């Protein structure tokens, strides 16, 4: 099973990289862009994991390693149509 984890800064934390991207977009004329938040994407291939097991495992991994809970939050999803490694 493949899962995708998205880690980004909490809303309360300033994201200077996102701000810089936003400023660049404004300079280019994309005035409609109100805000930009930059994050990180992780794709994990879990061997033999059931949906139930993933629901325990993935948040644990995200909290302990992938995100720093002081400054970051995370979302995750199971990638559909890409389950298993063989074609």
């Amino acid at each position: 099973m493949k899962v995708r984890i998205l880690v980004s800064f909490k809303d309360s934390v300033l994201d200077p990289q996102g701000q810089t991207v936003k400023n660049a977009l404004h300079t280019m004329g994309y005035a409609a862009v109100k805000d930009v938040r930059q994050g990180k994407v992780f794709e994990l291939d879990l061997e033999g994991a059931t949906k139930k097991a993933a629901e325990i495992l993935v948040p644990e991994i995200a909290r302990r390693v992938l995100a720093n809970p002081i400054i970051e939050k995370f979302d995750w999803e199971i990638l559909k149509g890409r389950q298993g490694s063989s074609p």
Partner: protein
Amino acid sequence: MKFGVVQFPGSNCDFDTFHVLRNVMKQDAVMLWHKDHDLKGVDCVVLPGGFSYGDYLRSGAIARFSPLMQEVKAFARGCGRVLGICNGFQILLELGLLPGAMLRNKNLKFLCRHVHIRVENEKTDFTRAAKKGQVLRIPIAHFDGNYYAPAGVLKDIERHRQVVFRYCDAGGTITEEANVNGSLAAIAGIRNREGNVLGLMPHPERASEALLGSEDGRTIFASLILSLEGRKPARRAAVRKKTGHD
């Protein structure tokens, strides 16, 4: 007094730190390998600057899982002295031995220059050789040194006098320009509540010899030596040595 300098893959201030401890401060010093479990009976663990594990994921995020760091954690819990410099500070934050986290510098630039820091608390094991409000000139070299803590945590840190250094100008005034990386409350270094763990972004080992432009960094190492050596006979010995400094 015996110092141990921890080496991770990607550490690059390990030998500078080792050199200063052994040849400048004239102390016993050993290297500690991140994969070992042995602290070799040191009195103080130093986590040096560098880019442990290439700063992958987040600065210091991987180093904290090293076998040796589990020993360092136990050592710190038992009141052993731990000093984290730059990447070492980042590791201590990730490890949870110090509160808060590091964000990218506010201008998104790697900053490598001399800065001034003001001693905010001279009654710590890391600053007792300094005078109240003394300004130290020490270089920084980092990308992620923009200190952050949630409002409640910051309040706690201030209340327990855990802020040991703040960025300031040459005269000791805290200004926005002097706070080069945008740190919350201009924080350059903090200690834990118990007082045995300190993390700071500036590099005292790069400012310990006149030839390198500043000797101010020695104050931090000298303080550690005073506090550990002065502890054994009597507090009087430490006071006598203290007045002999500069």
